[in-house]
């Protein structure tokens, strides 16, 4: 116990005397939490529209002003031919072309129907899909207005009508930041845990100070605990700073209990630190350690459901998310912070991550060798 205390003293001193590490620990959460959520907004709005109006009629003008008034579209240009409008798409100036044919108004009134043509830059498929859907629904709305002008409907609606009432729980304002911030907190904690811990040990290897420890009677588990505990504490500190920023900057106050969050984070950090330790025992210099942890983090984070929904992934990727600790924590954070899930709701997550922690740490202790 005494040995461990001295080891801890050494580690904490080392950490606090290195200003760059302190900067990483305190500045990184700020930068990430203050900037990332602003960038991560998938809502499709401000679609740049190019209009090719061959008709120049009252109807075509009405339709255009209705589209621009909707708030989703910004009129980028009026072009006199389709190829000019296409040129705007090629130059990334506009996203969508609406072409109104000659005699649009005449056909609509006299021939009972007319066709509009749209072309959408579909490199970003989701945006194209939604943009097209928005424009279509605006046109349909306008269509209804036109129809009302010409047709007198009977007072009692003869059509069967299903009314759809939709409500959005837990985040009624559909604020994307409520969704992103808890996920980014996970990112922070994970980076501190895996990166810093593995780099710390490998640095000792690289500059040779690990030899000094290896010749002392310090036991394997003591050495590893001595490395684990400081970063475990740091991880929780980063989490607290992050939660504070989330509260002050975005007004995110967890609906669930703080105890649930910290209990899970405590176990989760053990798992991530175990991973960091494991990486450090299998690498010999910081460059390697960093690349490998970076590589794994990238896979874990991208497949962790932070940016895209896990449900939409193919089966093999979903299988990977089951052995991905990051995805469990992201899930838990969102559940507890936004929905107020309790410990019993997340018990399955908790047990799984605890299993990871035991497995990874045991492996790390076994593979750490005092002899080189």
């Amino acid at each position: 116990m005494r040995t461990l205390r001295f080891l801890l003293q050494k580690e904490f001193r080392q950490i606090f005397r290195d200003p760059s590490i302190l900067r990483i620990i305190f500045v990184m959460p700020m930068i990430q939490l203050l900037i990332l959520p602003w960038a991560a907004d998938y809502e499709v709005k401000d679609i740049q529209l190019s209009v090719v109006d061959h008709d120049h009629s009252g109807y075509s003008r009405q339709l255009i002003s209705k589209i621009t008034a909707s708030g989703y579209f910004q009129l980028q240009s009026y072009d006199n031919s389709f190829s000019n409008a296409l040129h705007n798409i090629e130059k990334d100036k506009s996203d969508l072309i609406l072409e109104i044919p000659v005699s649009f108004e005449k056909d609509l009134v006299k021939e009972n129907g007319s066709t509009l043509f749209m072309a959408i830059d579909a490199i970003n498929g989701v945006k194209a899909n939604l943009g097209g859907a928005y424009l279509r629904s605006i046109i349909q709305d306008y269509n209804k207005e036109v129809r009302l002008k010409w047709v007198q409907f009977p007072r009692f609606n003869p059509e069967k009508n299903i009314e759809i009432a939709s409500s959005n729980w837990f985040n009624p304002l559909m604020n994307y930041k409520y969704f992103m911030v808890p996920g980014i907190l996970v990112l922070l904690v994970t980076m501190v845990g895996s990166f810093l811990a593995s780099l710390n040990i490998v640095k000792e290897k690289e500059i040779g100070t690990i030899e000094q420890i290896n010749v002392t009677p310090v036991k394997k588990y003591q050495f590893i605990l001595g490395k684990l505990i400081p970063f475990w504490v740091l991880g929780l500190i980063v989490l607290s700073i992050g939660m504070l920023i989330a509260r002050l900057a975005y007004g995110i106050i967890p609906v669930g209990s703080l105890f649930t969050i910290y209990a899970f984070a405590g176990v989760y950090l053990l798992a991530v630190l175990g991973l960091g330790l494991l990486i450090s025992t299998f690498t010999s210099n910081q460059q390697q350690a960093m690349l490998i942890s970076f590589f794994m983090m990238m896979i874990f984070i991208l497949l962790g459901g932070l940016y895209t929904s896990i449900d939409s992934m193919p089966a093999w990727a979903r299988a990977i998310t089951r052995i991905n600790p990051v995805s469990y924590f992201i899930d838990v954070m969102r559940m507890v912070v936004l929905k107020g899930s309790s410990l019993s709701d997340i018990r399955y997550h908790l047990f799984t991550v605890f299993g990871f922690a035991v497995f990874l740490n045991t492996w790390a202790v076994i593979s750490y060798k005092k002899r080189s």
Partner: protein
Amino acid sequence: MNQFISFVRKEFYHIFRDKRTLFILLGMPIVQITIFGFALTNEVKNSKIAILDNSKDAATISITNQIEASRYFDVYKNLRSNNDIESSFKEGKVKLAIVFPQHFNEDLQHFNKAQVQLVADASDPNVANTLTNYASAIIIDYQNRINNEAKLPYTINTEMRMLYNPQLKGAYNFVPGVMAMVLMLVCTLMTAITVVREKEIGTMEILLASPIQPLKIITAKAVPYLLLSMVNIASILLLSVFVLDVPINGNLFLLIFESILFTLTCLAFGLLISASTDSQQVAMFISLTGMFLPTIMLSGFMFPIENMPLPLRIISNIVPAKWYYLIVKDVMIKGVGIGEIWKETLILAGMMLFLLTLAIKKFKIRLA
């Protein structure tokens, strides 16, 4: 010149003898392309939903069947009461609940009017929005079918064409982004670290004391990574054409030329970082926060730039990856020539020269 070549050779030895690093450097683009190409989609499908059917009649069963048949939904469970909705949301699996009131079909047949309620778990607003839209579309479909779709007068039809990417594949958007990311990582991070590493373990002193000019030492460090990135570009392009079916519509040589330009920009940035730091951890931290995060966040391939607040939109202009991403998208997918992208190319070239001059100026021959 001879000296220089032997220095380049030395750097190659460094890289080739570290098998793990080499493996990751070459494997990274392959893994990224696979993940981005197949696993990450913003599309929403197979979402688990719950149904609370208080009516259980012909209409509700028919709607439920249609919802179950669509690829967007996976009916996960049938609920019995309103209280079940909240608890199933809290367990985290279910994303949407559809509630049919009692006498749904009766109301629909006799009063021509019935109500259905969609409750979405909006902790993910994107998914909530999309699922509500999809479910509404299916219900409206059903409604139209029972109305026999009388042809309405005065109809405006719309014809839609998806340009460049008619199947709306996510890969078209991601491949250019992954190229930027991989090049950034290999060039900036690795160059920064490899120079700082020599400083940290003390071998830089030996190099500086040798008769070779310092500039050559630094250039020799950059050359292998330039070549490595060329290999990576080749593997990304091959994978995207043959595995993901993303075509190269423009001129291949133009694409390669622009990639080399971007690679040089990244190398210059890496050298600048290495000239201004002394420890690998700091170098790594700066490359990650200064280069990698902005590349992911502000280049426009993960998050739409036009949605960002003004300060971020302005900052995005100084991120080289943004311009490279635009160029690759234009050349590779839209198939345009240099005429449309000369502006972006000039900006990138300007950034490269600026960073390179700065790096050379900052590089000190004497160690502190």
